[in-house]
């Protein structure tokens, strides 16, 4: 039963994502993972500070269920169906070690140098994680969606705005990896 322990190839994962999108469409919803950040802010009372968060968040509770599902899925996959090691292109792994001193490639799911609990208290790591999250949250709301809302749902619906957003995602990602990483690491 290798399907249980081996990583899933792209031709399994991609169609499954499309399936999730269609199931949600048939239930009258859409597939998008970032609007629940806005819902969470509203739940926590951000509506008092900005009109953006004054909306009927209770109608979005189904989306919070999806978040719960994602959390449970991650728990099951990581604890029962994985050795938690991700193997990447050896040249890329080598470059990570040589240029940035990240040696945990091909040994873990996430780089322990950044995410490991032993480095938890290092201010630089906390800043990287915090700022990374900040950019994702801000950017997703500004663009009106993240990879699921734009790259998958929006492009499936042949929406030009989604194409612009995805182009933006890639420009941002490439700038970060190729221009900014050398400055940080």
């Amino acid at each position: 039963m290798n399907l249980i322990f081996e990583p899933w190839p792209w031709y399994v994962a991609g169609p499954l994502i499309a399936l999730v999108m269609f199931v949600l469409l048939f239930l009258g919803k859409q597939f998008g993972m970032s609007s629940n950040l806005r819902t969470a802010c509203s739940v926590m009372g951000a509506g008092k500070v900005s009109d953006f968060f004054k909306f009927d968040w209770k109608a979005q509770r189904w989306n919070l269920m999806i978040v719960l599902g994602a959390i449970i899925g991650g728990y099951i996959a990581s604890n029962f169906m994985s050795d938690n090691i991700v193997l990447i292109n050896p040249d890329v792994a080598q470059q990570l070690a040589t240029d940035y001193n990240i040696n945990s490639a091909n040994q873990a799911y996430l780089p322990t140098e950044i995410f490991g609990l032993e480095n938890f208290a290092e201010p630089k790591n906390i800043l990287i994680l915090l700022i990374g999250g900040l950019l994702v949250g801000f950017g997703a709301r500004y663009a009106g969606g993240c990879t699921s809302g734009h790259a998958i749902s929006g492009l499936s619906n042949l929406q030009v705005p989604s194409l612009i957003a995805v182009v933006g995602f890639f420009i941002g990602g490439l700038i970060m990896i190729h221009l900014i990483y050398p400055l940080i690491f």
Partner: protein
Amino acid sequence: MFKSEAASWFRIYEMFQFGSFHMYGIMGSALALGVIGVQIIKRKNIKPINGDEMSLKPKEKGVSRYLIGGIIFGLGWALSGACPGPMYVLAGAGYVSILIVIVGALLGTFLYGVIKDKLPH
């Protein structure tokens, strides 16, 4: 997400280094099926089970919000190695430090809500 390694920082880094087809394969195949499926839905006028219209509304027109927002998102995606979906998945998988990323994402969302009227759309 987890099983396909789409939630792994290493895979995202590799993607932006064009080191593997894997991530492109995931998004490309999802998209290929998505486009076909949505076309079928539209031509056959398929409705969701509650009888309303399908949630396939066109997005608001514009360029700057999508481009600028997209670039900002992309910067964060490459830095943290995670977009929102994987953040929740990794939290479930027990990687406690992703909670910092999630807090950041909530702050970023909040910040947008506060300053959005001053931004170009």
